[in-house]
């Protein structure tokens, strides 16, 4: 049995993850054709690379099917209940920075804070007969955030993509989405709420609490952590 390391299977997140490990002497790479999800690990023995979607990494870590995994803080916290009992945060990787934020139409000059959002939600429900819609794919994070801040009279509507467009198309009144620069929000005539930062996320290396480590794997894990500079 080897240590299984789960890494996002495509795009910049994969390349930057390969880069981060490479800088520390653990060379990761894809083998075979571009379409084949197979990989190799050099610089350390007894480690197997598992390429998978970043969204699946939390589940695989929690189930103990991979020992280590790279994914966003946002996905871990959205997908795992009591996340810190099923995974351990080993190292923030310093890229993949993204903030989960609440945004409303820029034309809402009267709304700048959660306090405003809550008041407007009450008025909206009275005027329109239904609860103000917030489009997001981060249901749990957003709901917990709004509950903790005492915002009422809203509903979350699911949006798995093009979330910033939902207000214009009148399927939502506000959005909660990931942004790194805010450009897409601005281009869609939306603005951030001053206190609407739900979560600051970045790519992070996690260790599974559930994945069993035999004697050999424990040594591999120690060697790995030494190479990566993790105490």
């Amino acid at each position: 049995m080897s240590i299984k390391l789960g890494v996002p299977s495509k795009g910049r997140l994969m390349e930057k993850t390969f880069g981060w490990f490479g800088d520390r002497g653990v060379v990761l790479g894809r083998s075979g054709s571009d379409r084949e999800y197979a990989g190799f690990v050099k610089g350390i023995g007894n480690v197997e690379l598992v390429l998978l979607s970043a969204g699946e990494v939390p589940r695989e870590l929690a189930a103990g099917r991979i020992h280590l995994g790279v994914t966003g803080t946002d996905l871990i916290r959205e997908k795992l209940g009591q996340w810190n009992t099923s995974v351990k945060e080993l190292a923030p990787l310093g890229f993949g920075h993204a903030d989960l934020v609440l945004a409303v139409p820029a034309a809402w000059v009267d709304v700048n804070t959660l306090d405003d959002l809550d008041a407007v939600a009450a008025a909206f429900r009275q005027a329109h007969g239904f609860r103000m819609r917030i489009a997001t794919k981060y249901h749990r994070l957003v709901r917990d955030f709004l509950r903790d801040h005492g915002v009422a009279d809203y509903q979350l509507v699911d949006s798995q993509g093009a979330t910033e467009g939902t207000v214009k198309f009148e399927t939502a009144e506000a959005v909660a989405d990931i942004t790194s620069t805010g450009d897409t929000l601005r281009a869609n005539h939306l603005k951030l709420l001053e206190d609407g930062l739900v979560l600051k996320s970045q790519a992070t290396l996690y260790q599974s609490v559930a994945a069993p480590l035999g004697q050999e794997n424990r040594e591999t894990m120690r060697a790995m952590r030494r190479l990566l500079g993790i105490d």
Partner: protein
Amino acid sequence: MPERAAIKAEAARLRGLFEAAGAMPVEASILQPAEVLLDLYGEDIRGRAYVTSDVLRGEQMLRPDFTVPVVQMHMAHGAEPARYTYAGEVFRRQEDDPERASEYIQVGYEIFERDAPAASDAEVFALFHQMLAPLGLRAATGDIGILMAAVDGLQTSDRRKAALRRHIWRPRRFRALIDRFSGRATVPESRAALLAADDPMAGLAPVIGLRSKAEIAARIKVLREDAVTPPISANEVALIDAVLGVRETSGYALERLRDIAVDLPAISGAVDRLAGRLEALAARGVDVEALDFEASYGRTQMEYYDGFVFGFYAASRPELPPVASGGRYDALTRQLGQGREIPAVGGVIRPGLVVALGGAS
């Protein structure tokens, strides 16, 4: 975990006792339309209830409690007054505490009665108190109606009072509103700039979405009115805090609230109702001198209790949820009744916890 059969037997026994007290047994579907529950409790209920759906009926929830279906049933074709009892599973999604059950049995007793609220409150509590007596539980009581009356009595605009009433059950937001309305919180820069602008709507970004320009203008008008509304006085804030801070045995609590009512006469009616309830409880043999009362009890529970609230706890097992809980929910019947209403009070016992604590028979 006790045997399921033992729990079901205990549930049947408890329901039998409620029947003997005059309640009619009723049933409710496990699948409940999600829309009704969402409108009532808001989005938070999604974190607490299991949601499922099909293409014909849309979103459905596994019943998180019996209160809503029982109220609906009563309002559709119930005679008055009425007493109901039920026993069955409820389902609660658990996202934070793996120790909490996601499926358990509740046995309930609900009274729909117009004329003697104090007597009905006392009837429910005394019945629970008596049935649970062998377990030696600690009873907690409160009365949301007193805080509501205190809010209604504030010397401030109706709009501010409505905002505070809306957040009675969200203590943190309630506190933030009090701080803002009393001038203790600093006005955010963006708000100050908005209020100072001659024409805040000048150069407006494209108005997208359903919320119209008129709605934005209307809110700015509201904010301007609010900005010239005098702050809630420090004295009144202190009175609200005094009400929230009442935590004594019932006799002393009543005395304390009467003292506060001298400066905050708006709560007098609610305090009289508390006195009436304590009398009714004493008449039913409850030792009210030893009964705890906490004015802020029940504020963070389900949002529908708006008067008397109570819970029974196992002092030796603080990790357990309340063995029984309940209260008055007049406002809920108003919301579900679409124009009609019927004062109601009731509560539930968890037979699983009763069995776990050694049984109450």
